[in-house]
């Protein structure tokens, strides 16, 4: 099939020959449409696996296994019923518990720490910050054996509090770094004015600084929630039936008989849903928070 396309080079040539360029508005519109198409293609390419997963979760197992992928099918809720009846409840509760508790703890610790690090930098500040981030450089695989031994010794295997502590430690460096960058945005004069006005430090933090950095706190909290919710390695190694989280539950679906696509898709959709909802609810604050530092 012969297709003639006018390449951009042609347009450029005529323009280069001294010809009057096409009216700006027209060219702009053409380029915008082209960019729009490309953006949609990229967007769909990224989103497609997720979309497929959600579609599959509404199929029967037979529909999910057809040799050619089925886009039109009769939707059914039997997979979701199956997931709920196979006992996802406690796992969901554990995930929520571990995530919420660890995130609250992280915020409680990281906010004052980041404030201190931003307020009065000393010679050691860079070293402290590096130390924090260096703990993230160690692959968790390398640390799992000693951690397992310690947790076992203190009899805390299959215990939700183990996960809370570990998730807190896991997210703390990121939270400190993020919050510090938000605190640095607060103009120094505001703190000086507050000190002249007679406000003690904790009051300055609570009444003046915190309202300014609240988008940052939202963004940091959401990042911590995402990491804690999706965390798999600690959960699968240190928990079982009692304290298992949703990622652990999902793995249980991969049995030796093979994968139940549709039911797995339903379970995975359920697993992703809370975080997506949280992100949706917080999206305004999130964009504000994540782009705040970029404007500097």
């Amino acid at each position, binding site marked *: 099939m012969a297709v003639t396309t006018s390449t951009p080079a042609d347009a450029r040539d005529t323009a280069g020959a001294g010809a009057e360029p096409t009216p700006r508005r027209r060219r702009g519109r053409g380029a915008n449409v082209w960019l729009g198409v490309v953006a949609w293609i990229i967007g769909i390419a990224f989103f497609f696996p997720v979309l497929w997963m959600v579609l599959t979760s509404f199929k029967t197992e037979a529909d999910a296994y057809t040799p050619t992928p089925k886009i039109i099918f009769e939707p059914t809720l039997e997979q979701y019923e199956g997931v709920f009846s196979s006992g996802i409840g406690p796992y969901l509760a554990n995930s929520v518990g571990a995530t919420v508790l660890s995130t609250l703890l992280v915020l409680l610790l990281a906010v004052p720490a980041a404030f201190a690090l931003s307020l009065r930098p000393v010679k050691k500040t860079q070293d402290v910050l590096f130390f924090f981030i260096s703990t993230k450089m160690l692959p968790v695989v390398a640390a799992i054996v000693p951690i397992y031994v310690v947790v076992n010794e203190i009899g805390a295997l299959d215990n939700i509090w183990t996960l809370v502590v570990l998730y807190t430690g896991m997210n703390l460096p990121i939270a400190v770094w993020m919050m510090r960058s938000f605190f640095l945005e607060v*103009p120094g*004069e*505001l703190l*000086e*004015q*507050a*000190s*002249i*006005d*007679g*406000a003690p430090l904790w*009051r300055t933090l609570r*009444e*003046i600084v915190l*309202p*300014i950095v609240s988008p940052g706190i939202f963004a940091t909290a959401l990042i911590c929630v995402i990491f804690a919710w999706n965390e798999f390695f600690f959960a699968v190694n240190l928990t079982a039936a009692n304290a298992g989280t949703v990622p652990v539950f999902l793995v249980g679906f991969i049995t030796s008989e093979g994968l139940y696509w549709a039911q797995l898709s339903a379970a995975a959709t359920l697993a992703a849903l809370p975080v997506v909802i949280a992100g949706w609810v917080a999206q305004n604050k999130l964009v504000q928070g994540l782009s705040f530092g970029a404007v500097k």
Partner: protein
Amino acid sequence: MAEVVFDQASRIYTPGATPAVDGLDLTVTDGELVVLVGPSGSGKSTALRMLAGLEPIDAGSVRIDGRDVVDVPSKDRDIAMVFQNYALYPSKTVAENMAFPLKMRGMDKEERGRRVRQAAELLGLTEYLDRKPKALSGGQRQRVAMGRAIVREPRVFLMDEPLSNLDAKMRVQTRSQIAELQNRLAVTTVYVTHDQVEAMTMGDRVAVLADGKLQQYATPSELYDRPINAFVAGFIGSPAMNLLELPRSSGGVTLGGVEIPLPRDVADAAGSRDRLTVGIRPEDWTLESTEADAGSVIKAVVDVVEELGSESYLYAHLADDTSTSIVVRGPGRVQVRFGDPIAVRPNSDALHVFDVETGARLP
């Protein structure tokens, strides 16, 4: 109401380096508005911050009402400060902003409300009390910052370039408002600016600083009429004073082939120096006819004409020395244009003469 004394106060960031503030000696009497003025890096803001307690005092002392405040934290010095960027608390309303320092002092709600309303009325802010800072214009924010300072009824007002962020018209308006307010409240005020016009119009006395050192501390008219060195001479007055390095002649100095006589006492003080820095303000030239005798007037060629309506300023270079430029004040409707020749004669009673090396005034 209080007297502020800087007694050999110094701020040294790194030992061995040039101090940011070098042995400042300054007394602000009760109820006076003193302006600290100087170019960037002159130490004026640092000196103010030392008074506020935001910078440590490395040497010497700073006293408020006779009490040395070197170990006293800012909140206990009974001062109020207005920053260049106003430093308004963005999450609080105007009323809450103004009440904040009173709240920190534990004042009860009724008294706070009363004082805030009083200050708001004084500053014309009553209708804005429930707004947040982001809904206010620059001038309004500035007034809120002032209101927050006034409610404290402090002993000293400190202002760090409060007008720098305002547009030109707002600046002129607010300048007179601040001056009027200070007169009415009669609170000792220390005001920092880099704008010499602000300094001259607002200050009871003005301290000119450069490189951390006090150059001259006097009333605006004294600074204008008798600058103590070439730096002050060139800093105060706009357009700046013409400062020309001229060779000595038998009767005075030579400029553009013309001898300018020096007064007796100046000539004596100048002694055997063969070159002097001579200062002539733009308004101290007389414009003569270009036909006049070459030996008595200085010929120049106009480069730029600035018409201001009430007067004009002519920027010209000397006819026989294109590297020397002068500024001459002319009448409001001057008929000269770029490239035109002019002839000027300096007023010999209005010369300011300084030593070429040290810049010190002679006599």
